[in-house]
């Protein structure tokens, strides 16, 4: 469990009441948020995928759509109901709203005395994240640790994060590349939200069970048409998430994973995965916790105006490990090993938790279909064989 130091999400006995919101009344929730001055970002269908973009009305949500995900493959499919959140995570993550892909850090203009520096950061937008899954809440909490809970605070992230209003949605199904139960990050949203919803669909009724996770969540729910959820409705909401938990497409054995990967930095599997890895960086871009950036300086033709930009970078590029004299990770093997070992092992030493939340994006969006759970399992399996062999050799 990741603890929040910076933000006060609280669940107390008094306001932890469960409410029922009819499907059509979710429009009222969106309106209440918009009237409070927020721009609502939520899932919507675009270019054959469910992406995160501005939503104004219920019809903007992916009603009746679901996704089928496998390593290197994502397909939208029709559902036989009108579910609004009947799918799993897509190509985008909330990272792009909290930690912008491209950001101008400053401009410099030449004057008589030298340079005049201007920081033209725009104020953070007031955004609602509608439809944040449990794994994504954990991903945000992990980035909080990286950007604002340590000694070096990223103010751009911090301001955006503080303003963001989080509406979580509990998962009623698990995708083919999901493994949040392995990472203990889901599928139930337990903290880190202003409001959490569970979508309940039955033959004759379709509603949400809502709970507030903060004061402002309570306030918004007060402006939405709701009624108190009864015991059977609350029970159904729990069962729905339990069902999702039983349907994980993938599994990652995390037992002693840090030591396992540290011990196996010369495992032959790294060569094997290197033969498949495209070093295209898709996994790191799609990952909701990968946070690395680079800075690029530009000048104009006159040389009187310069800018410094920050953009997402990836440990799969050679520039990433470039120091004086050259790149430190020239081989593909060293780059994949760096990424996976950092994500699953070194992250624990660095930030106290795993860097992986089991969302499965790196598996789905890898054009070569490389599966981090399969790679970890292969290292574990071969190591076991090696140990058994050593044992047998010892016995003989």
């Amino acid at each position: 469990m990741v603890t929040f130091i910076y933000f006060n999400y609280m669940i107390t006995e008094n306001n932890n009441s469960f409410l029922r919101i009819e499907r059509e009344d979710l429009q009222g929730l969106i309106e209440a948020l918009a009237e409070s001055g927020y721009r609502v970002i939520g899932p919507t269908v675009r270019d054959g995928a469910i992406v995160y973009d501005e939503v104004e009305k219920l019809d903007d949500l992916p009603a009746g759509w679901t996704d089928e995900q496998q390593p290197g493959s994502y397909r939208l499919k029709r559902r036989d109901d009108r579910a609004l959140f009947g799918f799993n995570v897509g190509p985008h993550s909330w990272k792009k709203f909290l930690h912008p892909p491209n950001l101008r850090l400053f401009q410099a203009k030449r004057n008589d005395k030298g340079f005049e520096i201007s920081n033209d950061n725009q104020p953070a937008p007031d955004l609602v994240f509608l439809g944040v899954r449990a794994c994504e809440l954990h991903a945000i909490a992990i980035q909080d640790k990286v950007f604002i809970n340590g000694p070096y605070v990223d103010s751009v992230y911090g301001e955006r994060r503080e303003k963001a209003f989080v509406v979580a949605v509990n998962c009623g199904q698990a995708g083919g590349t999901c493994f949040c139960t392995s990472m203990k990050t889901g599928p139930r949203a337990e903290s880190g939200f202003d409001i959490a919803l569970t979508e309940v669909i039955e033959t004759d009724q379709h509603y949400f069970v809502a709970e507030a996770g903060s004061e402002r969540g309570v306030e918004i729910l007060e402006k939405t048409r709701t009624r108190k959820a009864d015991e059977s409705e609350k029970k159904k909401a729990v069962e729905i998430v339990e069902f999702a938990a039983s349907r994980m497409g993938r599994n990652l054995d995390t037992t002693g994973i840090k030591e396992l990967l540290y011990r196996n930095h010369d495992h032959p599997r790294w060569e094997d995965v290197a033969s498949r890895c495209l070093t295209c960086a898709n996994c790191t871009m799609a990952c909701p916790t990968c946070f690395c950036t680079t800075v690029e300086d530009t000048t104009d033709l006159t040389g009187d105006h310069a800018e410094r930009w920050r953009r997402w970078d990836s440990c799969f590029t050679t520039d990433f490990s470039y120091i004086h004299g050259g790149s430190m990770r020239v081989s593909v093997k060293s780059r994949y090993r760096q990424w996976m070992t950092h994500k699953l092992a070194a992250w624990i030493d660095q930030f106290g938790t795993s860097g992986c939340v089991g969302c499965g994006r790196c598996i789905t969006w890898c054009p070569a279909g490389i599966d981090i759970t399969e790679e970890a399992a292969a290292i574990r399996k071969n190591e076991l064989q090696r140990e058994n062999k050593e044992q047998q050799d010892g016995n003989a």
Partner: protein
Amino acid sequence: MKRKETPKLALWKFASCDGCQLSLLDCEDELLAVAGAVQISHFLEASRAVVKGPYDLSLVEGSITTAHDAERIHQVRRASKRLVTIGACATAGGIQALRNFKDVREFIKIVYATPEYISALETSTPISAHVKVDFELRGCPISKSQLIETISAFLNNRKPVTPPHSVCLECKLRGNVCVMVAHGVPCLGPVTHAGCGALCPAYNRGCFGCFGPQETPNTTSLSDQLSRLNVQRDELVRMYRGFNAGAKPFRRESEKNEE
């Protein structure tokens, strides 16, 4: 602190379509700034007026396909303090490097009524195969913003920002949905050098590889994946034999699939 003299800029054309040179004229918003920052001294596409060399910066378009050009590129090099190639022809041999896989005399016989008037080399080769090149700008055609960036970098004595990673990174920065993963569309993005801003995938098309191979292209793995999307071997050969057919990783991969 102002620069002392206005540097002389020259543009040179070898075997090419002129598209990359035209990219400079296409820089409508920046053209006056370019003309102010440099003395455009040799640019026949724009003006017959030629200023004598030597030139501070030469932009070279096109590949070497004739014995005459193989000589001329040395003259250009001698007259240039810095030589930057622009585009796939100058950097990898261009689409005309398709001749490298066949007998060029056969082509000449088919195309020209009087083949004996044609004097062409058997191969189309990049500028770097003939003279020292200071920097190579990729693309078919080059990106206008990268051209301005390269000229700015030259004027300010710094390295141009033209990252050599894959197109995928640009695709993700732009928020595109991966056409290969979500639609099963064959795409060269994972093995292709960035620079176009992931133009084709933004319009739901697979990448054609216009910017040539990225820094560490794993074409073998991509071909395996494309085969799983039912791309046949002859089609793979055609995919790698585009504007950058002569670039080593693409050439090798196409030859491997031809066997």
